[in-house]
C-alpha cells in the first residue's frame, strides 16, 4: 500500500507547488502589500490608533463585537436554513420541491441591498422620517430593534446568504447513497432520526463550507449594515473599514482589514477542527440511488415552512426590485408606474433626460462582456479552487502547505476591493520583463476576478471532494492510471455536482460585483456592474435597479442552464 500512496503523493506535491504559486501571486502579494502599507513610518501609528487609543473602543472593539455577533449569527442561521431546505429538496417527499430548489438559489443572485430594501419597505419606522414602511403606515408601532441595527441586519444577511449553504449542502446530500440510509432503516431507526443522525452528519463538511462562506460574506458586507445600522449608530468592522478608506484614512482601513483576516483565520481554524481527522466519504464506487424520506403528515408543515422561506427571501425582494424599476418616483407609488426607465426615449422632464437603460448604446456590449467575464472567471477560479482542495485533501500530513492553501483561498472576501485593485495595478501595471503589461486588458479583470472569488470555488470543491473515497483513487493507481487521468476520469466526475455549484456561485458573484473591477475596468470593457454604479451615483435609482435586475436574471439563467447541462443527475430532478 505504501507504493500506492506514494504514487498519489508525489505528483500531488507538484500540484501543491503550482497552486501555492498561484495563490501567492493572487492573494498573498496583495495581502503583503496591505501589511506593508500599514508598516511605513508615517502609517504605523494606525495600529495603535485602532488597537490602543481613546479611539479604539468606537473604531475597533465595539464594531468587532457587532461584526462577530452578526457574522456568527448569519453563518449559523444561514447554515441551519440552508441545510434544512437542502434536505427538503433532496431527501424528502415534500411537494413542489423542485420549484423550491430553484427559488432557494436565487437570493444570492439578488443584491443584498434589494433584500435590505424589502425589509425596510415593511419594517421602517418613524426614526428616519420620510415614507414609513407598511406596518408603520397601518398604524402599528414598530420598535427600533426591528427597524434598525443588529436584528434586521442579521436577518437580511441570512436571507441573502442562506442560499450559499443550500447550494453546497444540496450538492453533498444528493451524493449520500440510499444504502447508508437503508442500513440505518434496518436497525429500526425512525425516518426523521435517520435524517438527523445520518444524512446531516455525513454532509458536515458541506455545512461547514456553507457556514464559512456565509460568515466571511456576512462580516465583509458593507451595504446592509450601512443601510440598516447607521441610523442607530450600529457600526461594524466593514462600515468602519469602508468609512476610513473613503474619508482618506486608508492605512487605518487597511489595519482593520488585516485584523479581519486574522479573525477569519481563527474562525477557519476552529471550523476545520470540527471535521479534522474524520472521513466523510460517501461516494465509494458502490452506486445506489438516493432515497427519499417519507415525512407523512409533516409533509405539509415542511411545505409551508419552505414556501414561506423562499417567498420571503426570493419572491418578495425580487418583486420589490422589479417594481422599483417601473415606479415613476423612487420608492413611491404616488406618481404611478412607467416603463420609461427601461425603454423610454430621452425626455428632459424625467430623470434629467436620462433614456431607458435598454436604449443605452453600451447596454448590449456590457451584457456580453459581463457574461464573458463571469464565465472566464468561473472556469479559472474553479480550476484553481479544485486543484487546491484536492491537494489539501490528499496531503493531510503536510499541515503547513494545507493550512496555507486553505487560508489564502478563504480570505479574499476580506481584502477590500479597492486594495485588491490597487495591488493588481502595482503588480501588473507595468511590463514584467519581456511580457507586455496586462493593465487595461480583459485578462487582468479575469485574474483579479479569480482572486476575489476563490473562496467559493475552494470551499465548494473541498466539500465535494471530501465525499469521494480515497479507495477509488488507490484502485486506479494500482490499475496504472496517472494523476491527470485519475483526476479527469474519477475524481472530478464524481465530485461534479459540488464543483459545478461552486462555478455557479463564482459566476454569480462576478457578474454583480463592482468593488474589485472598478479600479481595473476601462471604457473598452463596459460591464453591467459599472453601469449600475454610473446610474446610482447620479441618483437614478430606477435605472440602476433595472440593470441590477438584468444582472439577477442573467445569474438565474446561468444557474438553470448549468443545472440543465449537468443532466439528469441534478439533485432536484430525480423526483
Amino acid at each position, binding site marked *: 500500500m505504501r507504493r500506492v500512496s506514494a504514487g498519489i503523493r508525489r505528483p500531488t506535491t507538484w500540484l501543491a507547488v503550482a497552486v501555492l504559486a498561484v495563490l501567492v501571486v493572487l492573494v498573498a502579494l496583495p495581502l503583503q502589500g496591505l501589511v506593508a502599507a500599514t508598516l511605513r513610518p508615517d502609517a504605523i501609528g494606525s495600529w495603535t490608533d485602532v488597537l490602543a487609543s481613546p479611539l479604539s473602543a*468606537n473604531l475597533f472593539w465595539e464594531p468587532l463585537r457587532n461584526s462577530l455577533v452578526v457574522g456568527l449569527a448569519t453563518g449559523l442561521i444561514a447554515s441551519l436554513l440552508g441545510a434544512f431546505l437542502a434536505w427538503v429538496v433532496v431527501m424528502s417527499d415534500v411537494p413542489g420541491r423542485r420549484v423550491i430548489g430553484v427559488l432557494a438559489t436565487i437570493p444570492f443572485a439578488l443584491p443584498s441591498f434589494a433584500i435590505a430594501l424589502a425589509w425596510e419597505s415593511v419594517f421602517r419606522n418613524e426614526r428616519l422620517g420620510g415614507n414609513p414602511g407598511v406596518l408603520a403606515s397601518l398604524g402599528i408601532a414598530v420598535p427600533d430593534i426591528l427597524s434598525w441595527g443588529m436584528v434586521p441586519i442579521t436577518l437580511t444577511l441570512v436571507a441573502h446568504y442562506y442560499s450559499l449553504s443550500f447550494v453546497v449542502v444540496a450538492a453533498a446530500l444528493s451524493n449520500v447513497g440510499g444504502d447508508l440510509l437503508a442500513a440505518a432503516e434496518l436497525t429500526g431507526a425512525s425516518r426523521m432520526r435517520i435524517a438527523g443522525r445520518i444524512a446531516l452528519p455525513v454532509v458536515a463538511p458541506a455545512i461547514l463550507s456553507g457556514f464559512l462562506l456565509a460568515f466571511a460574506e456576512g462580516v465583509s458586507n458593507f451595504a446592509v449594515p450601512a443601510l440598516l445600522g*447607521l441610523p442607530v*449608530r450600529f457600526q461594524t468592522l466593514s462600515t468602519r473599514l469602508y468609512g476610513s*478608506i473613503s*474619508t482618506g484614512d486608508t492605512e487605518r482601513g487597511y489595519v482593520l482589514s488585516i485584523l479581519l483576516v486574522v479573525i477569519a483565520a481563527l474562525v477557519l481554524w476552529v471550523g476545520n477542527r470540527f471535521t479534522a481527522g474524520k472521513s466523510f466519504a460517501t461516494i465509494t464506487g458502490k452506486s445506489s440511488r438516493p432515497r427519499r424520506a417519507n415525512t407523512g403528515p409533516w409533509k405539509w408543515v415542511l411545505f409551508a415552512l419552505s414556501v414561506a422561506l423562499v417567498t420571503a427571501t426570493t419572491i418578495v425582494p425580487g418583486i420589490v426590485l422589479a417594481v422599483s424599476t417601473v415606479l415613476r*418616483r*423612487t420608492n413611491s407609488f404616488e406618481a404611478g408606474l412607467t416603463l420609461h426607465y427601461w425603454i423610454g426615449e430621452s425626455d428632459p422632464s424625467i430623470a434629467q433626460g436620462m433614456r431607458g437603460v435598454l436604449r443605452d448604446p453600451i447596454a448590449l456590449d456590457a451584457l456580453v462582456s459581463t457574461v464573458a467575464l463571469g464565465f472566464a472567471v468561473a472556469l479559472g477560479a474553479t480550476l484553481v479552487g479544485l486543484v487546491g482542495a484536492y491537494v489539501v485533501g490528499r496531503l493531510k500530513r503536510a499541515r503547513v502547505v494545507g493550512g496555507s492553501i486553505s487560508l489564502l483561498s478563504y480570505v479574499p472576501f476580506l481584502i477590500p476591493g*479597492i486594495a485588491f485593485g*490597487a495591488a493588481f495595478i502595482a503588480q501588473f501595471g507595468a511590463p514584467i520583463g519581456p511580457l507586455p503589461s496586462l493593465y487595461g486588458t480583459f485578462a487582468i479583470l479575469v485574474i483579479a476576478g479569480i482572486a476575489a472569488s476563490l473562496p467559493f470555488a475552494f470551499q465548494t470543491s473541498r466539500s465535494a471532494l471530501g465525499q469521494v473515497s480515497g479507495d477509488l483513487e488507490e484502485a486506479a493507481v494500482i490499475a496504472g492510471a496517472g494523476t491527470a487521468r485519475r483526476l479527469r476520469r474519477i475524481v472530478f466526475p464524481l465530485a461534479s455536482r459540488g464543483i459545478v455549484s461552486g462555478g455557479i456561485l463564482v459566476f454569480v458573484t462576478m457578474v454583480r460585483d463592482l468593488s474589485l473591477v472598478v479600479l481595473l475596468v476601462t471604457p473598452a470593457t463596459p460591464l453591467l456592474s459599472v453601469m449600475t454604479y454610473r446610474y446610482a451615483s447620479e441618483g437614478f435609482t430606477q435605472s440602476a435597479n433595472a440593470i441590477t435586475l438584468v444582472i439577477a436574471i442573467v445569474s438565474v439563467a446561468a444557474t438553470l442552464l448549468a443545472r440543465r447541462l449537468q443532466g439528469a443527475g441534478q439533485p432536484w430532478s430525480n423526483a
Partner: protein
Amino acid sequence: MFRRPMPTRLRSALVVAAAFPLLVGLAACAPAAEAEDAVDYSALSHDELVELATEEGEVSVYAFTSRIATVEEAFEAEYPGIDVVATDISSTELITRLASEHAAGSATADVAYVSDAPVVVTELLADGVLEAYLPPRMEDVLPAEYQTPLVANRLSTKVLMYNEEAYPDGSPVSNLWELTEAEWAGKVVLVDPNVRGDYLDLVTEMSLRADDMAAAYEEHFGTPIELADGVEDAGLQFVSDLYANDAVLVDDTDTVNAAIGALGQSAPPVGFTSYSDRRDNEDEGWALQVASGVAPSPGIVFPAMLGLTANAENPAAARLLIDFMMGDDTETGGAGFEPFYVAGDYPTRTDVVAPEDALPLEELAAWIIDAEASAERRDAVADFLLTIQ
C-alpha cells in the same frame, strides 16, 4: 494606500530623486532635444493648442461624475479629430487608481476631474501625481481661490435643508445651535461624516470656523460658550451636542433627501444635503428647500477640480479638454459647462451667470472650504468624531 500605497512607490520616488540631477545635466547638454520636448503650452494660441491636440488625436479622462459622458459628446462635436475616452468612478476610487497607476508607471489618464479636494491635496498633489493647469483665458475671470491648488470649474454644496411643504413660512431653524435643543432631538439627519468625505469636510469647516460658531452660540443662548472637557473648539462642541441630541446618521445623500424631503409629512426632520438635489423635487416627490439665513452659515461650498496627470500622454489634448470644461464666454458657459449648469451648484467663473431657481452664492452665505486648511485639520476632526459616537 492613499498616502503611501505600495513599496514600489517609495522606490520610484528614490529613482526619480537620483535621476533628476542626471536629467538636468543631460538637458543642459542637449538643448535641441529639450526644445522639442518642452512645449510652453501656456504660450500657445488656442488654434496652436488645437492643432497639437488634434495630432495627438485622443484624451483620456477619469471623472467622479457620469455627466462626463455629456462632456465627451460635446467635446467631440467641437473637435471632431479628438477622441475622448471617459471613465467615471467614485472620487475615492479615482484617487487610489491615479496614485497606484502613477506608482506602477502604468498607463493612466491625461485628465482627472475630481471632488474630495482635501484628499486630493494630501494624496495626489503632494506626491506629484496631479499637476495644475490654468487655461490662460481663465486668469481674469476666475477668482484666485479657484485657480489653486487645481483649477475648479464649479462648486457643490452640503447645506442645511428643510421640507417646505411642512414649513411653508420658511426655515424652521434660524440658528444651527437650535438643532442641539430638545425640539430637534432625533430630527436632524446627515450622512455619517466618518463614512463620507464631503460630510467630514462639513464638520471640519465648522471646526475651522469655530469663532463664527461661538458667536452664533452666544447670539442664541445669550451666554458665551463653555467647552466641555476634551473638546477643542466651538465647532466640535456643536457636533458633539448634535450627536448627543440623537442626530440620525445615514449612509448616503439620497437617504437624507427622502427622509427630510418626502411630501405628506407632518413634522419632518431637517438635514444636511446638496442644494442642487432640490431640482429633483418634482421628479421624486420631495419638498426640499435650503435653510438660507441660518446663523452662522447653512453649511459648505466645495470645488470640483480639474488636473493634469504627471507626464500625461496627450498633454495638448489634456489641456484642451480642461479648457473646454471651463466653459465658453456665453452667460451659461456653453456646451462644455452645460452638464454642470444646474440650480444649486455654482459656476466658479465670475462671468458665467449662476442658474436661476437658486439663491445667488452670496445670499446662500455658505462657507467656501479651503482645501489646504481643511486637509490639515480633517484627520483630527475625524478622530474627535470617533470619540463622541
